[in-house]
């Protein structure tokens, strides 16, 4: 996504804020119901990320009220880190500003979403966003903020000290939208969010009544994800130039070692020899062409080790299964995962669960639930690599048909998920990703086929035994009638004896 981020050079005459408002469908604010959904979603994701930073089990309250028929007030509160005073205005009211330009798995990517929600609310209702936050136990503070669309700068309308019970942030905004049509999706989103983040608890309240309380299916916080430098293969021209800006004084070799993971003295020497650059050259002396050559070579050079997966946070077997089993009525579940692998220097892991349960709709192919970096994806499924890959498989071979309702939960996590658009609803078809997803689905399918065959057999055997036991009980009863005795002999011992040896025959 980074290379698609507009910069001042590309859009010299309009600000990012203005660009995104004009193209709001890119960020998922294309129509009134989607706008409500996207705003809630962005706020929840920010809160979840913030709780993860704080290493706290998230408790998130979402309250929505429809003030006027189509003006909706959304308030999302969390128990996360809170935001330090100096960052608040820019974090909420500057497009493309945020804490997320790090190379690690996050729900949000680069601080576009929430600001977009703020912008959308401001333009449709002319009201500011209210941010109430408390950071590291200091005095809580409440802000009212606007965005200056033309300059992409925050305007602080008011700010005042206001106590808060604990660290965390509450964001309140108003926007014009369609709550009725969005509500169902929001409920689904919240439910699925607690599948992919099972240690979180989310409360959803609409017009003062509790609509859903979901989560805390798992009490262990996932280990903290570790931020790391980008992998050299991920270094496109733009990233390279940005990194170089702050390191003009460094020697080229030192710059590479300091800026990238998996690059030490040895590797960097070999690489610079490969691309014939002087290791001692000053970074500031590099021309645009030099950067171009460097960037191309970094991607081609095969001497780099695979990227680190420390910066990934897969859901994990137990937590994922706990989330699914608590949310859906399942009969059996099976977990599998693939990776870590990489696409263009970005590490990723795919993990998935295939679940059988009567609650799932009957269909010839499993019902697919998609997750990316622990975020459920609800829109644009037909374009998604997960959907496409699932449809490629012949599920009949794995015994999936309408008689055995199954569903598939697939989670892909990466330092950079290859979304198709800034709205983050579907994942692009990247060959490396597709290959891993295909293998994962096959593994899940094979296991499913095995278990259904086994359970079908067990079911048949069980049915046979019950029928036999029933017939045999009748036999004993009629026999007793015939013999003229009131005491019907017990048959259970003989039946047990017969069926204990039966499976070995």
């Amino acid at each position, binding site marked *: 996504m980074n290379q698609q981020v507009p910069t001042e050079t590309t859009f010299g005459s309009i600000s990012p804020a203005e660009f995104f408002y004009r193209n709001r469908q890119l960020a998922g604010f294309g129509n009134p119901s989607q706008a409500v959904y996207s705003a809630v979603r962005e706020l929840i994701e920010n809160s979840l990320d913030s709780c993860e930073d704080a290493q706290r089990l998230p408790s998130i309250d979402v309250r929505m009220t429809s003030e006027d028929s189509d003006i909706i007030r959304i308030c999302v509160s969390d128990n996360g880190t809170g935001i330090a005073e100096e960052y608040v205005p820019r974090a909420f009211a500057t497009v493309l500003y945020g804490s997320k330009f790090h190379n690690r798995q996050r729900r949000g990517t680069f601080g576009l979403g929430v600001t977009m929600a703020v912008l959308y609310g401001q333009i449709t209702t002319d009201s500011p966003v209210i941010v109430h936050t408390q950071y590291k136990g200091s005095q809580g503070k409440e802000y009212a903020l606007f965005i200056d669309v033309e300059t992409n700068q925050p305007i602080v309308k008011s700010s005042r000290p206001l106590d808060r019970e604990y660290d965390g942030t509450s964001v309140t905004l108003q926007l014009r939208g369609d709550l009725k049509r969005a509500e169902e999706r929001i409920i689904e989103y919240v439910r699925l969010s607690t599948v992919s983040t099972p240690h979180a608890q989310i409360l959803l309240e609409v017009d003062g009544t509790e609509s859903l309380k979901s989560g805390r299916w798992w009490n262990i916080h996932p280990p903290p994800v570790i931020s790391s430098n980008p992998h050299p293969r991920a270094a496109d021209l733009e990233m390279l130039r940005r990194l170089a800006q702050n390191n003009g004084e460094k020697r080229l070799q030192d710059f590479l070692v300091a800026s990238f993971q998996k690059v030490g003295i040895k590797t960097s020497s070999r690489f610079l020899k490969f691309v014939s650059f002087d290791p001692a050259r000053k970074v500031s002396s590099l021309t645009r062409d030099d950067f171009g050559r460097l960037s191309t070579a970094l991607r081609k050079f095969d001497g780099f080790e695979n990227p680190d997966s420390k910066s990934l946070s897969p859901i994990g077997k137990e937590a994922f299964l706990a989330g699914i089993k608590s949310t859906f009525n399942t009969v059996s579940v099976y977990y599998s995962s693939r990776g870590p692998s990489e696409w263009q220097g970005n590490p990723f892991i795919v993990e998935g669960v295939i679940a059988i349960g009567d609650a799932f709709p009957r269909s010839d192919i499993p019902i697919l639930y998609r997750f990316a970096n622990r975020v459920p994806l609800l829109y644009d499924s037909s374009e998604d690599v997960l959907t496409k890959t699932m449809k490629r498989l012949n599920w009949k071979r794995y015994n999936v048909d309408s008689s055995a309702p199954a569903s598939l939960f697939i989670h892909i996590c990466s330092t950079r998920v290859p979304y198709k658009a800034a709205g983050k609803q579907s994942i692009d078809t990247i060959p490396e990703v597709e290959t891993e997803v295909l293998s994962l689905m096959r593994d899940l399918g094979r296991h499913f086929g095995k278990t259904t065959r086994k359970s079908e057999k067990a079911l048949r055997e069980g049915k046979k035994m019950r029928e036999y036991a029933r017939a*045999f009980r009748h036999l004993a009863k*009629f026999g007793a009638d015939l013999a003229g005795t009131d005491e019907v002999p017990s048959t259970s011992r003989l039946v047990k004896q017969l069926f204990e040896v039966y499976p070995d025959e």
Partner: protein
Amino acid sequence: MNDSNRASIKLTDLGKQIVESILADRFPVLEIPDRNTSNIVYNAKQNRFVLGDSTNIRDSSNINHIRSFTQLTWVASFAKQLLAASRTSSLRDLYYSSEAFDVVFKDQAESDRIVTDLECVTGLPRESFGIFPDEHSSIYGELVMRYTVPGYDGREIDLTISPDGLPIGPALMTAEPIRTDAEIVLAVESGGMFSRLIETKAWQRFKAVLIQLGGQPPRATRSLIRTLNERLDLPVYLFTDGDPWGMHIARVIMSGSANSAHIENLTTPGAVWIGVTPKDIVSYSLPTEKMNNADLKRLDELSRDVRYSDHEWQKHIEEFRKLREKAEQQAFSRYGMDFVVDTYLSDKII
């Protein structure tokens, strides 16, 4: 009711055998004589066909047997109740009664088969358990019988009482023949011919007790024919359609069926099949129909059947095969309403 006591004791013994087996931690097992046609042998002493030595084992530890084993036990307990209450039941009644006991039969054919199994196991005909078929043959003629069934015990009945004939049910089957002016028994296959013979007073002319068989006759009818033959010494003439099926109706009355080869006192070995024989079809120039595949296949089966091993019967089969035509009893109507009585039967009954 000596007979009924005997049946009741047999059924009780069957129940005891099952209960004792289960109490001893053994799966109950039954041995049932094999009723396949390949297991029918001629018994010269009884002058009838009986079941051979081959038997089937019904083992309750076999999942494929348990169902029919349980059904058999239920039929037995049902029969015992009938006996205890001096009641009777038709085969169809029995089939429907099973539902109240949580016993499932696929269809009546299955429950009928289980009843036959019970006969084989106990060696007693189902009639002695009070179980009778649904269909009835009819009888008409100058014959007086005395009922032995409860409620009618001792009452006499003249079989010319109704111009439609009287149905042969459990009561008539067990009734005693008292006296008769008739000299023969004439059993005919179809209801139409039966009515014709009553209307035209053929029974007077031939001094005959008329019996309508109605296809393959129920056992009660066969049993009654035998009784009349033995007790009143009346010769028995059998008049059926001129096809393999008609011929076999006659043959079963004479020598028994595979399904009841295990039962005594049903056959009338001295009965005579007067026709319609294949020779009759030719010599009376009867209107015919072509034999179909089923007819020809039936001829093949009969030609291999032990009951047809006699030269005379093989000859009939051979003639049918050559002719490849068949004729019904009614075919004589071609020559007028009275032809069958005036000409054909007069020729045949000597």
